[in-house]
């Protein structure tokens, strides 16, 4: 009798705890399943839709139509070139500054960090609006007066948009290094700043640079507001135009855009895996 009462509690616990744990797990699977459904259906939907152009059968006609459209080729090429220019510009702006601040002006780091976060605080459309008012033909710096000037302004705008992502990627990379010691060691060996940046730091933060670069690429490629307001023939405005004028081509464009985003994110992961030695174990 005593033995029975003693052995009862654990058995009771076991009896109620297991079904409850199973219920938790079932609920988790249900939530996860709903999540997958929500995220997968639009992707399946856009792929299916993009194949429907030819009546009654699935075909790649929408893709052929998009890829052979001279407008597509021109705007896509324009945006790719813009992305590359933005990446170079952003790197040139952020890498030396981030390094310099770590080595010579640590006090200024919060200020720089704050500035790089501003493009997230001020909506893109407001920045673009500011550009139109500040750099118009009657201003002190009439950049929107010429095509080249507007292109340069767009690149500068994109570099501004990319600041938060670029800075955080590079700063994360530098965080894992002992920048001070590396710089001093290089200086003792007679290296100048050029050598320090390009032969000491760059290889060490290569992975971080790549992830900043790919993220920038995927953001700039489909950007709409800046390009539309500065009236440049970029990929984003082209997509909006297609959406209003074609039926199946927009879905094909969405598939292409998704593939590019996925590719960029995949390359970031791949870069992290290919150059794991750049991550210091500390």
């Amino acid at each position, binding site marked *: 009798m005593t033995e029975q009462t003693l052995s009862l509690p654990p058995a009771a616990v076991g009896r109620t705890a297991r079904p409850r744990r199973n219920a938790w797990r079932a609920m988790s699977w249900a939530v*996860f399943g709903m999540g997958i459904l929500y995220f997968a259906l639009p992707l399946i*939907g856009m792929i*299916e*839709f993009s194949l429907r152009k030819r009546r009654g059968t699935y075909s790649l006609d929408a893709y052929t139509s998009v890829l052979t459209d001279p407008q597509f080729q021109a705007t896509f090429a324009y945006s790719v070139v813009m992305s590359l220019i933005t990446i170079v510009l952003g790197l040139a702006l952020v890498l030396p500054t981030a390094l310099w601040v770590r080595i010579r002006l640590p006090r200024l780091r919060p200020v720089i960090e704050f500035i790089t976060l501003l493009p997230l605080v001020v909506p893109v459309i407001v920045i673009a609006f500011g550009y139109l008012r500040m750099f118009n033909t009657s201003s002190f710096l009439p950049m929107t007066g010429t095509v080249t000037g507007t292109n340069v302004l767009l690149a500068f705008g994109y570099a501004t948009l990319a600041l938060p992502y670029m800075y955080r990627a590079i700063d994360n990379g530098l965080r894992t290094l002992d920048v001070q010691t590396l710089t001093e060691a290089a200086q003792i060996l007679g290296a100048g700043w050029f050598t320090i940046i390009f032969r000491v730091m760059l290889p060490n933060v290569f992975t971080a640079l790549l992830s900043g670069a790919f993220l920038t690429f995927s953001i700039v490629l489909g950007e709409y*507001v800046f390009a539309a307001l500065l009236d440049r023939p970029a990929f984003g405005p082209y997509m*909006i135009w297609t959406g209003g004028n074609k039926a199946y081509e927009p879905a094909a464009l969405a598939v292409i855009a998704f593939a590019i*985003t996925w590719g960029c994110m995949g390359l970031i992961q791949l870069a992290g895996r290919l150059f794991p030695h750049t991550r210091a174990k500390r």
Partner: protein
Amino acid sequence: MATARGAYIARTAANWAGVIPFLAFTLIFLLLPTVNIVFGAFRGPDGGFTLDTLAKLFEPRLADSFWLSIRVSLFSAALGAGIGFLVAAAVIHGGLPAWVRAPMVTFSGVAANFAGVPLAFAFIATLGRLGLVTIILKDWFGINIYTMGFNLISFWGLVFVYLYFQMSLMILIISPALEGLKREWREAAESLGASGLQYWRMVALPVLMPSLLGTFALLFANSFGAIATAQALTGSSQSLITVQLFAQIRGDVLQDPNLGYAIAFGMIVITAIANSIYIVLRTRAETWQK
């Protein structure tokens, strides 16, 4: 003495020289354009100081647009944060196999960046009048969602589409915080007799609360500034404040150039509040992650 001070000044100057390109660039291409807009909001057509332009923000047409943007952002941020949290919690603490986590986070990274025009196209192809799901429901189950009152080009349609990047951003940000919940806390709670629900309500959620609220503020700002998705999805039928400002910049539709400044200023104020909340709460949240 004089040479020592001279050397000090020279060194300080040399120190600052390294950040001048960055400061100059951000001054000209980020700070000044923004400040320019802010000043413009306080200026009348004659160039003098006035609060009249800002007062016009409270006229129905603009106030409605602001209110619409705020509601879309609130709902999409709240639902995105809530559901995103549930999904992340289910995957990380719900007894699902561990290999699910890494793909989920990677996919969230992609989905969070899959915004703008293509996202709108994807949803039109799925839930539009000729979309895959719409047709399947109609042909296979006899359910016509459009006669039932569903419309993708509506307030809730917009919120539903925004959830795509809102939820994934939430999953992306909250996963590290969820993984930071220490096993010991759960074990301690269980050994004191707490049920799973009690553990979540009294231990895990209070610890996560700053991250949750902070991310909510971030999501709010994220959708408040968005425009391309709405533009591609609804044209200008849902007049979000961003859509209004866009039209104003392009064609001066409000017949008052200074009103554009005022709208932009109002947007800055709202996103600045949301982002300040995010930054403050994020620093709070980090105290538990050490």
